[in-house]
């Protein structure tokens, strides 16, 4: 169910010092941000519970980075409210900044500092006690596998190392909420795995929001996914939920040497809701790849195969395709395009 239909109750009566234990880590309601007349974020609402890992997905310019910047208090929102651990960002930004670790898009770092110097400086700015800072720096260097480069100058590090310096910096002060804008961009598969493990190790202790274009990445690390397009939340839920909800059907891919109509007739004998979705031209041996879709969730593979063989159709392959998050993403973003164009037509 798309979230924008659901109203989120805002907890406005929160005691100044200790929020109640069930306060969500992040609560965003009806957030709007316009830049010089262009709406970057329009009416986004969502909430993130403590210890959750949330993935932000969306095409370029969907409003992911803008939303993250508003969450950190770096940009002011045009309207709507955001609170981090029960603290409203707009009225108490200083408190909010103590509760977050933020790694911006493209991970900006000063070029002419050493890694350990940089972490020390950032630790001091984030009010980590001087005595705890040394051991804590050692700890994050270890966690992010940066020990080898601790005395190197940041400007001379490779992209992968720089990215990990950014992550180390974000988790340095052990904030309850960590916001990372595309943390795995430009990393090689091995490094992605390290980062993934790192994020997974934060599960339960810290609330993490990451944005990414890399869908398998999000699918593996995140508990929940928010798909944003054109400044709106178009879908949210666990990857499995989304798959079911957005695609809402199973797909069977059959390589068969027959006429599509004949195949469909055979298939409908098994399950009347099966529909032909795509078919290809026959190849050199006369086989076509045909895709059938159905609303039914349980596996029809065996019955389908039996029915086809009973009619003496030559079947080379039959498989049930698993919808990936990629399909969900494409379907969800396409869906919001449709909504948009319908809106326009109405006007």
């Amino acid at each position, binding site marked *: 169910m798309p979230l924008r239909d659901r109203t989120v109750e805002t907890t406005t009566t929160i005691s100044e010092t200790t929020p109640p234990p069930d306060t969500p880590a992040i609560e965003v309601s009806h957030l709007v941000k316009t830049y010089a007349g262009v709406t970057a974020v329009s009416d986004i609402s969502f909430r993130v519970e403590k210890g959750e890992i949330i993935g932000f997905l969306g095409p370029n310019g969907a409003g992911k980075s803008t939303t993250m910047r508003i969450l950190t208090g770096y940009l*002011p929102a045009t309207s709507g409210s955001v609170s981090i651990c029960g603290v409203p960002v707009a009225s108490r930004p200083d408190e909010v900044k103590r509760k977050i670790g933020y790694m911006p898009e493209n991970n900006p770092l000063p070029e002419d500092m050493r890694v350990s110097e940089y972490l020390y400086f950032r630790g001091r*700015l984030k009010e980590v006690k001087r005595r705890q800072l040394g051991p804590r720096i050692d700890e994050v260097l270890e966690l992010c596998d940066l020990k080898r480069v601790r005395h190197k100058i940041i400007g001379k590090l490779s992209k992968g190392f720089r990215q990990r310096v950014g992550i180390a910096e974000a988790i340095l002060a052990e904030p309850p909420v960590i916001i990372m804008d595309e943390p795995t961009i430009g990393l090689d598969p091995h490094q992605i795995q390290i980062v993934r493990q790192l994020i997974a190790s934060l599960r339960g202790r810290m609330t993490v929001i990451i944005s990414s274009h890399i869908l398998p990445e999000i699918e593996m690390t995140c508990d929940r996914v928010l798909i944003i397009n054109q400044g709106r939340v178009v879908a949210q839920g666990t990857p499995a939920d989304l798959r079911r909800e957005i695609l809402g059907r199973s797909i069977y891919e059959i390589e068969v040497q027959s006429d599509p109509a004949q195949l469909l007739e055979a298939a409908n004998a098994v399950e009347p809701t099966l529909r032909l979705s795509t078919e290809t031209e026959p190849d050199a041996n006369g086989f076509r790849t045909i895709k059938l879709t159905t609303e039914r969730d349980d596996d029809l593979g065996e019955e389908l195969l039996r029915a086809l063989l009973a009619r003496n159709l030559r079947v080379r392959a039959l498989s049930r395709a698993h919808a990936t998050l990629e399909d969900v993403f494409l379907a969800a973003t396409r869906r919001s395009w449709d909504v948009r164009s319908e809106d326009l037509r109405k006007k």
Partner: protein
Amino acid sequence: MKHFFTLLSHEIRMLLVSPATYVAATAFLLFMGFMFTGMLESYSKEPQELSPAYVFFQFFWLPVFFMVPLLTMKSLAEERRLGTIETLLTTPITTTEVVLGKYGAAYLLYLTLWGCTGGFFYILQKFSGDIRFLDVGPLIGGYTFVAISGLFFVAIGIFTSSLSRNQAVAGIICFVLLVAVIGGTNYLADSAWLSRESLDPLKDAVGYMQVLSHRDDFTRGVVDTRQLLFYLSGTVLALIFSILGVEAKLLHS
């Protein structure tokens, strides 16, 4: 203001490890050295009425025009260009602290560089063996003037650096503003159209703002509180504008 000293020490450290600082310092001292030797040559040719310290500070504006933009143009413009301003402002520090930290570091470097020129007078006194060359009055007055006017000039530099993400643009705007403040007021005070009677209050105001006449007063040992107020209020104004400059860029980015 908890983080001011963290930021200040960070900025000073960054200045000290940057080769550009040493290049600029060497160039500055070379230039001042040439000016000083040129001045001494004129003294050796014929007797002069004014003390060397007084003559030396007459040309203080020449290095200011070039040095202040070079020292300050990088500070905020570079942060914005690299995007590190975003990581900086998402920690529990305020824009005011960031601007003051940058300003403090640039001002201290400015003072240090001018302080080095004190060595010229020491060398002169040591080798001439003549105590008259080390005229303490104008010397103290001159350095006080440099320190106080520097507050304002460096603040102008920080302000222009907050306007653009391009260092060169920031540097050029800073240069133009400095020329306007130092040369422009002098030019205005002498211009004919201000000498009409109805414009007398304006002429008075411009008269108070003449940086070059302030310098003459200071080196003569006259410290006027109106002049101090001019520099201090100018500094505060320029710094407030820098803070607004940084924040306005966030609002309209």
